[in-house]
Each structure stands twice: as C-alpha cells, then as structure tokens.
C-alpha cells in the first residue's frame, strides 16, 4: 500500500531523511518509533503529500508523490497533533465542510455515521470551541475517516490527552484500523502503540534501523525492542 524507495529530504543544507526505504502491506498497522528529531514528523508530512521529497520515490496506493498528489490525497486520511478544525463551526459543520472539499456523495448519512463512530453524535450541534482536547481529537479522527480513506496517517495523536481521553481514542483508533485500513502512526507512548500496532519500525538518524512484526516480538515487549534498536 505504501512504497518508499531511497527517500531523501533536505531542509536547505540539513539532511533529515537519508535514503529511507519503507514498505507497508494493505491492512498493516505500523507504529513508527524513534527519538525526537529523528525525522518522524517530516516523514509523515511527505507521506501525507504536504512536503515534497528531495530525492527518491514515494508511492501510495499505486500513485506517485508528488506527481499524482490529488489521487493520493483522495485516498488518504491524516490526523496530526493539531486538530485541523474550525473553532467557530459546530462539529457537523466542520465535517460538512470537509465532505464538500472531498466531493462526497450522500454527505449527511456519512456525517452521522462518522459522528456516531467517534462518539460525538450528541454534541454535533455544539461549537468545536467548547470541546475538550480529547473530543477535538476524536472529531479530528472523524474528519480524517470521513471520505473512507484506504491509508491513514497518525502523527502523535495522543499529544495533550489525559488518561480517559487516551482510552477513548484507543477505541476509536481500533475501530478505524479494524476496517481493513492501512495505518502508520508515530507515538512517544510505546505502551499504547503496543496495543494497537501489528508492526513496529524504528526511525533513527533519517533511516529505518529496525523493524519487527507483533509475532516477531515474541516474549519481549516493545520497549525492549526499541531500546535494543537504538543501541545497535
């Protein structure tokens, strides 16, 4: 579903990504781990078509970036640590706006369906301004799945959430992932990614240094795998 070959990203003279290779099969849920400044956010921004690669190939669902960006965008749902929502619109107005941008048919039933999925149907007519951080983040996920994307990217979705909100977010993420979608998620929270992901990759110094499936993890936990990957 995602094919990345020899991806290089430079900011001016600084090289962030150094010939990164990355493949994700349909239906996989990849947790992308790595220290701060390793290039995780940069990498996700490139996958989400917001930033252009300096060198290398990126293909999502068979379409190349950046040349076929529009086709990729229609199949991609992105959640970042910013909500990407308008505070002065209600929940349903926000979704309706994005539904129009994505050119969806049958908007209203889909909006109701998504609101129910993220547990905000009872707050649909309230301004996003009045929502807690956790509710905003759930709505942001609703916004990202609205057009039923094949591939979803989550960049630190748990940032700024308390325990309860994180648990609710877990449920939403699980239901999003269970619908056969391909997911790539970055997170500091190793324990949470352990619950969700089917594969764990470590991004360090601009390349993928280690990768393991849930089965390959065996009896050790993600933390041990991560520490070992960084030390080698």
């Amino acid at each position, binding site marked *: 579903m995602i094919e990345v070959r020899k991806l290089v990203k430079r900011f001016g003279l600084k090289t962030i990504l150094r010939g990164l290779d990355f493949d994700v099969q349909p239906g996989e849920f990849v947790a992308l781990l790595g220290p701060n400044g390793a290039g995780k956010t940069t990498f996700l*921004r490139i996958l*989400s*078509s*917001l*930033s*252009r690669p300096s060198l290398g190939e990126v293909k999502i669902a068979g379409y190349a970036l950046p040349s076929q960006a*529009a*086709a990729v*965008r*229609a199949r*991609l749902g*992105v959640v*970042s640590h*910013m*909500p*990407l*929502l*308008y*505070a*002065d*619109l209600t929940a349903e*107005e926000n979704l309706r*706006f*994005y539904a*129009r*941008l*994505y*050119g969806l048919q049958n908007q209203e039933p889909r909006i109701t369906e998504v609101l129910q999925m993220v547990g905000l149907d009872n707050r649909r007519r309230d*301004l996003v301004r009045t929502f807690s951080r956790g509710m905003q983040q759930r709505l942001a996920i609703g*916004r990202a799945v609205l057009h039923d994307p094949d591939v979803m990217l989550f960049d630190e979705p748990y940032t700024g959430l308390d325990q309860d909100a994180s648990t609710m977010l877990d449920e939403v993420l699980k239901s999003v992932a269970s619908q056969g979608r391909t997911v790539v998620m970055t997170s500091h929270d190793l324990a949470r990614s352990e619950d969700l992901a089917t594969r764990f990759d470590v991004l360090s110094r601009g390349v993928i240094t280690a990768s393991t499936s849930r089965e390959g993890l065996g009896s050790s936990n993600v933390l041990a795998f991560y520490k070992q990957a960084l030390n080698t």
Partner: protein
Amino acid sequence: MKSPSLARSSFLKAVAAIVQKDLAAEYRSRELLSSMMVFALLVIFIFNYALNLEPSVRAKVTAGVLWVTFVFAGTIGLNRSMAVEKDRGCLDGLLLAPVDRTAIFFGKVISTLIFMLLVEVIMLPFYGLFYNVNLFNPGLLLVMLLGSIGYVVVGTLLSSMAVQTRTRDILLPIILFPIIIPILLSALDASNGFLNNLEFDLIQPALGLLVALDVIFTAVSFMVFDYVVEE
C-alpha cells in the same frame, strides 16, 4: 482521468465550500467584521481631528481618508482571515484535501473581499452622516469594488506568506503597503474624479489602470500561490 468540466465544477465547489465556511464562522463569532468596523470608525475619528475636516478641506481629502481607512481596516481582515487557517493547522487540512491550491486561494480572496466590501459599504453612510454629505455615487462604488479586488488579491497572497513567518501579523502591513501603492494611487485618483464630478474621460485612465492591475495581480498570484503553500 477527470474530464475538464468535472474538474472545473470541483474547483468551483471547493471555492464555494471555503467561502461558505468563512461566512458561517464569521456569522457565529462576528470577530472579524466587528473589529474591522470599529477600527475603521476610529480611523475616521482620528482623521477628523488630525486634518480638521471642515468643508473646504474635506472636498480635497475625502477620497484619501476613505482609502486609508479601508486599507488599514483591510489589513486586520486579511491577518485574521489567514490566522484562522493557520492557528489550528486548518491550512494543512485544506492542503490535504484533493482540491486545487488555487481554489483555496480564490476561496480566501472571495470571503475576505466580501468582509472588506461590507465594511466599506457601511462606512460610507457613516462618513456621510458625520459630514452631512451623500457619498452614494455609483462611480465611487465601482472604484471601491475594483480597488478592493486588487488589494485583497495581493493581500491574501502576502498574508498567507506572513502567517508562516515568526513575526506574523506585524509583518503584513510592511510587506503589503509598498506593493499596493499603484492600486492605491489609481483608486484615489478615480475616487477623486467621481467625488468631484469630473468628466468620465478624465477618470478613465485611472479606472483603466485599476482594472489592468486587478488582472495582472490576480494572474501573478494565481501562478505563484502554489509556491507559497506547498513545501
């Protein structure tokens, strides 16, 4: 492959969605219009005392006072309109959607233009009320429309750059004002012409230049907007 007509209709739909979104949000908060409006009134009050707007002075400076008011109030509108997109990452949200980047640009231009024209049309009767003059002159309205189009087009392009910098809203007037001088000059000249009931032949050069500037700046912004929002 999309057919051209389908692509055009999705372009227009995206523009319409953005305009409607901005109008709905503004209808809720009324932050933008109210601050522009109060600011514009304050500018007129300051001018009243700064220039001592008695009838003999006023005949010469009315166009100037109006345009300075519009330009200053417009800066607030432009800043605010882009800050809304940048603050919660909404600009990324727009860029993630499979719509043409220029559709985003025109959407923002049209909604900001609507706000600016609203403020202008409300300021005119205020000015008329304060000084007991009637400014409802179709010619002047036309100049206001044409001048505001050019101003908002350049302003939207530059404010989408300004919000992505560290200095943000302080920067906008500094980068915007030297660029819009030709628009301001021709709008002033044409406004003066209509307010002093000059013959159309005398106003035509300024009006023509204003139209040309609108076209030129729209075309240039259309070509470079991608570079402003895409990384």
